[in-house]
């Protein structure tokens, strides 16, 4: 599918902000009642900015803003309606929290409870967004729980790192930061595993719709013989996008793994091993955020839509399970008998 700026921004930033909220809430829990708490509380508006940037992007993703008032009409069926609602609630929650901290001077259980609630909303919003993608049956690469796990994973991981990096920069006590780094190593490794699994799934999705059921012609190879209007790309059909060539694709995936997981995990490892946190955290966080954008770009660009059966050739593939083995003796015996 064709990747677009607004979609990249909204999904990456929404995840990032959600992850930051989760990290913040964790900090609130574990830092209490330390001096760092004050720092932590002051981070709140930042999360709002990130979330709002995503929200604004999503707003401009709408091509007809005059119809925006209808977006909640289909809460019963549309994950997009739900996304609008949950992301809206989340941003509202964030704002409420910030206002509460500033004006209401919340602290203690009220602060913690509200922050946890908002972080929870963030996770729900992330989940709903991810469900939006994962429930699209036609987008073969996305139609899997992996989509939800990976999307939330990227959000939490990148948000966690960014939040930790900020703490590190503003000079938080290194001990909890080392613990945060250790958590990040685990998260990063898990994410790597999930993404690897998802890459594999994407590859499988490529062949999961068959030209034979798409055309009624059983015999492969199937070859598309059109030029002109039946050939991608159309400017008007965004679900389809020319295949990435295998070379560049491998390169991009490698880069994505490197930036999103390998570099951050290594950086966190260094911190756990005793390196001074600020520099490593910032490096790791920047790498993860850039990696998250790349991950999302690939998520769109490399996705296989079922309609691809009418846009590309389908080669005849040999069986993947056949072996060089003659007919079993039983069959031979049967043949002899029936002679």
């Amino acid at each position, binding site marked *: 599918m064709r990747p677009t700026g607004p979609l990249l921004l909204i999904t990456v930033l929404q995840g990032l902000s959600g992850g930051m909220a989760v990290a913040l809430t964790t900090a609130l829990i574990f830092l209490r009642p330390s001096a760092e708490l004050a720092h932590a509380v002051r981070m709140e508006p930042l999360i709002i900015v990130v979330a709002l940037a995503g929200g604004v992007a999503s707003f401009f993703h*709408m091509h007809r803003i005059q119809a925006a008032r*209808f977006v909640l009409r289909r809460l019963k*069926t549309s*994950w997009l309606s739900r996304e609008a609602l949950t992301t809206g609630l989340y941003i509202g929650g964030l704002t409420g929290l910030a206002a509460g901290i500033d004006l209401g001077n919340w602290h203690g259980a009220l602060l913690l409870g509200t922050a946890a609630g908002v972080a929870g909303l963030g996770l729900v919003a992330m989940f709903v967004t991810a469900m939006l993608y994962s429930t699209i049956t036609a987008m073969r690469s996305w139609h899997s729980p992996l989509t939800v796990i990976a999307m939330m994973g990227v959000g939490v991981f990148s948000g966690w790192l960014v939040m930790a990096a900020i703490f590190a920069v503003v000079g938080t006590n290194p001990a909890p930061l080392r613990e945060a780094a250790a958590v990040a190593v685990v998260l990063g490794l898990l994410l790597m595993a999930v993404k690897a699994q998802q890459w594999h799934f994407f590859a499988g999705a490529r062949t999961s719709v068959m030209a034979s059921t798409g055309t009624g012609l059983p015999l492969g*190879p199937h070859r598309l013989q059109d030029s002109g209007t039946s050939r991608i790309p159309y*400017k008007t*059909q965004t679900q389809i996008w020319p295949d990435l060539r295998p070379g560049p694709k491998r390169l991009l995936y490698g880069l994505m793994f490197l930036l999103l997981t390998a570099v951050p995990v290594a950086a966190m490892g260094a911190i756990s091993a005793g390196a001074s946190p600020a520099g490593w955290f910032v490096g790791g966080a920047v790498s993860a955020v850039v990696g998250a954008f790349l991950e999302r770009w690939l998520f769109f660009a490399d996705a296989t*839509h079922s309609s691809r059966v*009418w846009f590309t050739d389908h080669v005849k593939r040999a069986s993947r399970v056949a072996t060089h083995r003659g007919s079993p003796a039983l069959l031979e015996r049967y043949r002899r008998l029936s002679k």
Partner: protein
Amino acid sequence: MQLTIITDLNKCVGCKSCQVSCKEHNASGAFGSVPDHAPYNDPDGMWWNRIVTMESGEFPNTSVLYLPKACMHCYDAPCVPVCPTGASYKRVDNGVVLVDYDACIGCQLCIWACPYGVREFDEHEGVVKKCTMCVDRLEDESLPLRERQPACVQSCPTHARVFGDLDDQQSEVSQLVAQRQGFALLPELGARPAVHYLPRRPSPVVLAEEEVLKVMEERY
């Protein structure tokens, strides 16, 4: 009632008449326009019905297939529930799936949700458009009777396209689907398309193989 168009692949010659007559009607129809990008440069326009040419099999056992592909007006149209605004809807009275441009925000989620790649995005108007089963023709009582059918059906030079109600067991389309092993595309995706295709129906050699072999052996 579920309106549908059946295409007989045993007769479709891939002439793209249906593709053009669709554009021709809808350009100025109730659901138009159907715009074109860079019309005299490197063109890429909107079409609600596109003909795919597919070749399959190995020489000399090669098949060449033409597949006209427009909205399938699915029973369980996946494009409908995903739409946040309700702009995409399926009419209960005739099963036609339509887009209400006034409510559409142009999010294009329905484009991704449609398994068939038949929805297209109009960047200028900011809405998604697609085949309407020509409801504006069907319901326009000022038109002569023979024009109250989809433009693509009216124009088809091989009469490969047949229009009718798939829920009516007696209708021509139902009978064709029943008798000629009509099939829908990508059934595994569960959208339950109303649009069906009739498979190729080769006419066999008029002589028995043995007869030919006998003559061959005896004289050639």
